[in-house]
């Protein structure tokens, strides 16, 4: 646990909408701590001469032209919806 002092599994679980038991929280705190410890090894690499990148492969500008293509018919779009009405996906009422 000492390897990741700022790891708060309870908070991470809440952000991910996971309902964890106290036992699970303890287990994941240790396991995730080990993962972070492993990744932290990267901090020991000298990257002072390396240009930062947002992606592992040096490929840029993968674009498509602004051409509309056919979409799903609504019945296909809605085919996996647990609830639907009036061509809309229906979910539990949400209020922002």
């Amino acid at each position, binding site marked *: 646990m000492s390897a990741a002092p700022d790891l708060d599994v309870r908070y991470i679980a809440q952000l991910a909408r996971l309902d964890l038991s106290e036992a699970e929280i303890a287990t994941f705190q240790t396991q995730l701590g080990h993962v972070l410890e492993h990744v932290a090894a990267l901090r020991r690499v000298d990257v002072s001469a390396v240009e930062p990148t947002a992606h592992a492969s040096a490929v840029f500008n993968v674009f498509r032209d602004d051409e509309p293509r056919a*979409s799903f018919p609504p019945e296909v*779009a809605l085919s996996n919806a647990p609830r639907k009405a009036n061509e809309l996906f229906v979910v539990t*009422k949400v209020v922002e």
Partner: protein
Amino acid sequence: MRYLTTIGLEVHVQLKTRSKMFCGCAVEYGAAPNTRTCPVCLGLPGALPTMNAEALRLTTLTGLMLGCDIAPTCKFDRKNYFYPDMPKNYQISQYDLPLCVNGAVPLHDLAYPKDAQKSIAHPGKQVGLVRIHLEEDVAKSFHFENSTGIDFDRAGTPLMEIVTRPEIESPEEAFAFLTALRQILVYGDVSDADMEKGQLRCDCNISVRPETQTEFGAKIEIKNMNSVSGVRRALAYEIERQVGELTAGRPLRQETRRWDDAADQTTLMRTKESAHDYRYFPDPDLMPVHTAPLLDAARTRLPELPAAKRARFVQDYAISDYDAAVLADDRALADYFETAAKAAPKPKSVANWVLNDLLSALASAGKSIGECPFPAASLVEMIGLIDSGKISGKQGKEVFAEMFATGKTAGAVVKERGMEQLSDTSALEALCDQVIAANPKPVADYRGGNAASLNFLKGQVMKLSKGQANPALTGEILQRKLA
């Protein structure tokens, strides 16, 4: 105690592309629900996004128009949150490397609300921008009694977010900012920017503080305004509310409030405690972007901006600053005017007809300049008929009204109504001789020094010609004959 107001805006603008940001579904306002979807914009597992090059070009163009610095490299990140309008549980956005940074929107006088144009606190003010980034719009939610319905047609529409510096000091400046920004976006054909259609949406951050205090007051965010005047009213309401709280000794805390346009007030949505934590990280599905080729493409599309057009109209067509500003306010109106002005010997009279007659006719018919029943060339033809003396100025108004009602050309209206003025000198001379012979007293009066009698005689000639005599020419002939 006087209070200072600080306002910053976050403006979302839907870009005018044919297809969505990361998939090929069509972007169309008002299509039937869930008819413009695919695995990408429905957020189905495993679907892979591909960037729409045109959306990147339009955002770059916006950056150029607003004087931003265009980043040499930018990338897309995932903004994580749970909400049914974004079923993949993250929105693709740009976090630490946005496409554009800095820049400003100039506020010209006519951009302010009409009732505030006489009392502008900072004429010529420029509102600085922090950044402009590109993201995807979310689905549209419809809230029913016991459930929420979701339409994914809007999901994935290219959406530009423009963030201002906290430099706006009044609701009127916020109004002017949005008006001026909209104009520039329309000039660049980047967006139709219609607030009522949700193509331009605005969140406001506002704080007040006593003028003796240097640090900003608590930041209150207002959402849900759907018109520029709604933004102005919401901000005015908030200033009054916040000053009221502070005056009563109740400290303000950071919170988000919703504008209720019908009730004309804001209500609490959430406090800082429940603020989001989005855990941004680079989207591994999308490669970073080098902007050089986008810049090259955007530069070729840079339009003349409203400020430059106003200055040029004054210069090229010898019209007033105010007239130029009104004409340049609407790009379509400016284009109409310019088409006519270029073809007319006296551009100033074109400006007068457009600003007085055409604008009021359009306003009372509830039409936009794009729906004007006759082309600019017809207006030029009509003005030409007046200038050449074929019809009088008064007849011109009648011809104009008929053109506006029917779309007929000026020549056709004049012919149909038998309006052509009598400018044939010999015919006019005969009429003048007739009138002089029939009115010895006014003739004697005129010769005796009563200049007004000439008008009476002119009137008689007009009457005899059934209103078709050219008044200027008639005056000249009478004067010559009576000299």
